[in-house]
């Protein structure tokens, strides 16, 4: 029998009992729909987490202080608390490490900030002119800290949009030129950054940037830096830069055992891959739960096909009497079950797509339907038709024509 013939027969057979076929297909629709929806939610979550990691910079390495162990003592202060990184370390990295695109040391502190009308408490970051390049900061008004500002220890500040709103009661005001007081020292506002949104760890919009030298002289004291941001030239040079930085700093800090290092170098790629593995695990978890409902749907198909074969025993007998071979009968029933699951698969994809749109709409989690999940779903649903239709079809094909014709 030709395929088109087979499909025609299968179509007329499955439409005889529309309610039963519909309910059976519903099982597949729910199964495929939930698999698609779960995969798209998982992938969407992965995409948005990756995007927010990328928003803190590209090809970024961050050097931060680690434990500080005093010789002869077992007490170690907390990671990141030590003041082991200095401006000199940063300068050494800039001059000796190759494949670096830009470097920006920074120093952090929280202070009370006052404007003429309001006050707030926020993070103050002392840094240099290359910071926007390294950490993907864009300006919406004015300009960022310049090399000149750093050299002259200028009392200038760049505000994040949230901080601007907090200090001037409206995000739409242009605060450039206004004066604010940080820790009771007057700073002139020279720019406002564009909104970046939270990265999951801190709000990058509630922040004030001032020149590194100014922070060191007026706010923190000393020549320590809290961390050094390094942008590698490209993704492939990150490992090399990480190694060079580690070796250089170990040499400078006179440490021979890497386990005793008083600093750590965090690679952005590591963060991305750690986050990806978390989201992957959770996508697989969700998809497997949805997969269970798909298997249940498949069992529904098998159940219906077995009933159909019994009901149509005499039809099978008649078909055999007029010349149908085993293969003709089994392919007829297989075509029916594959048709049911295929239709279920297609409707399920649409359902899954609608669900993921609704999830995006109501919860704000970005979702992404990938082509491979659609192809996979169609393939899986047709495969389920084959697998769960095989046994009933074989049973139909194996019927003895005489007994089938006599069947009451």
């Amino acid at each position: 029998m030709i395929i088109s013939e087979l499909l025609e027969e299968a179509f007329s057979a499955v439409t005889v009992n529309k309610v039963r076929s519909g309910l059976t297909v519903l099982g597949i629709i729910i199964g495929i729909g939930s698999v698609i929806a779960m995969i798209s939610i998982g992938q969407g979550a992965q995409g948005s987490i990756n995007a927010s990691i990328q928003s803190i910079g590209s090809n970024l390495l961050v050097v931060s202080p680690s434990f500080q162990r005093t010789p002869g003592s077992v007490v170690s202060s907390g990671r990141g608390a030590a003041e082991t990184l200095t401006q000199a370390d940063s300068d050494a990295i800039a001059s000796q490490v190759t494949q670096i695109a830009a470097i920006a040391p920074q120093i952090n502190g929280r202070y009370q900030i006052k404007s003429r009308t309001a006050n707030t408490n926020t993070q103050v970051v002392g840094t240099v002119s290359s910071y926007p390049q390294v950490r993907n900061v864009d300006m919406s008004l004015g300009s960022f800290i310049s090399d000149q500002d750093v050299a002259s220890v200028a009392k200038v500040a760049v505000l994040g949009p949230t901080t601007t709103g907090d200090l001037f009661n409206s995000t739409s005001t242009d605060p450039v030129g206004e004066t604010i007081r940080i820790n009771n020292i007057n700073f002139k506002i020279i720019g406002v950054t564009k909104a970046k949104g939270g990265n999951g760890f801190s709000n990058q919009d509630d922040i004030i940037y001032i020149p590194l030298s100014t922070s060191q002289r007026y706010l923190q004291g000393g020549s320590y830096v809290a961390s050094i941001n390094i942008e590698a030239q490209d993704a492939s040079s990150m490992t090399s830069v990480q190694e060079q930085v580690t070796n250089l700093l170990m040499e400078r800090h006179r440490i021979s055992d890497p386990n005793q290092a008083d600093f750590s170098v965090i690679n952005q790629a590591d963060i991305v891959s750690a986050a990806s593995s978390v989201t992957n695990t959770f996508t697989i978890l969700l998809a497997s739960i949805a997969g269970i409902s798909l298997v249940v749907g498949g069992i529904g198909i098998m159940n219906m096909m077995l009933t159909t074969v019994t009901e149509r025993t005499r039809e099978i007998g008649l078909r055999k009497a007029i010349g149908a071979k085993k293969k003709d009968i089994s392919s007829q029933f297989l075509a029916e079950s594959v048709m049911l699951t295929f239709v279920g698969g297609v409707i399920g994809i649409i359902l899954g797509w609608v669900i993921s749109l609704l999830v995006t709409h109501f919860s704000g989690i970005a979702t992404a339907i990938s082509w491979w999940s659609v192809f996979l779903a169609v393939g899986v649903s047709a495969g389920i038709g084959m697998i769960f239709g095989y046994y009933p079809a074989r049973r139909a094909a194996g019927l003895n024509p005489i007994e089938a014709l006599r069947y009451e």
Partner: protein
Amino acid sequence: MIEVKNITKIYKTGDFETVALKNVSFSVRDGEFVAIMGPSGSGKSTLMHLLGALDTPTSGEYLLDGKNVAKLSEDELADIRNEKIGFVFQQFNLLPRATVFRNVMLPLVYAGVERDKREERAKKALVSAALPEDWWQHHSNELSGGQIQRVAIARALVNNPTLILADEPTGNLDSKTGEIVLATFQRLHQEGRTIVLITHELYVAEHAERIMHIRDGEIKEDGKNHSRRIVHHPAAE
């Protein structure tokens, strides 16, 4: 040409053996109209299954057009049924949800005949079973019993078979519609078709030109029907 040589059929159910046919031999010439008559349990259904290549004998030979059908596999038997035999059953002859036309074409679908050739041959068969054209697109569950049997005859003709095998074709019909069906068989016989009619009613058997009586698995009587009924029914013309 049909030749049955020393056919025996034994059914085994557990430890019991039932001999349904004992050493049966006969032949049917091309163009003959034979009635096989016998009460229920006589072995006539078993004989019908063997003649129709629905089953194989325990021993003996069955030559259909010179080919021994007795030793074929299941799929080979399906081919024989498809090519050489046209069935008319007592009931459940047609697929209820398919049209008359589709039902008649079905054996050609399994034979792998192309669509337009199929339609042409189905039309011819429907015409020779004297089925008016306005029935052709009806679904078979919209037809009366007599109409169904005539569609079944058309389907039996469509593959141009060696043998038309009718198993109690009038069993579910009233005598008037039964006559139309029998008249159709007689007309096909006049056109040169070979027909074997299985029945338990003498009245029906008397429409054939030769009657074989079967009882307890053996042929008791086999001869020309001297009191042949000839029916002329305008609906069958």
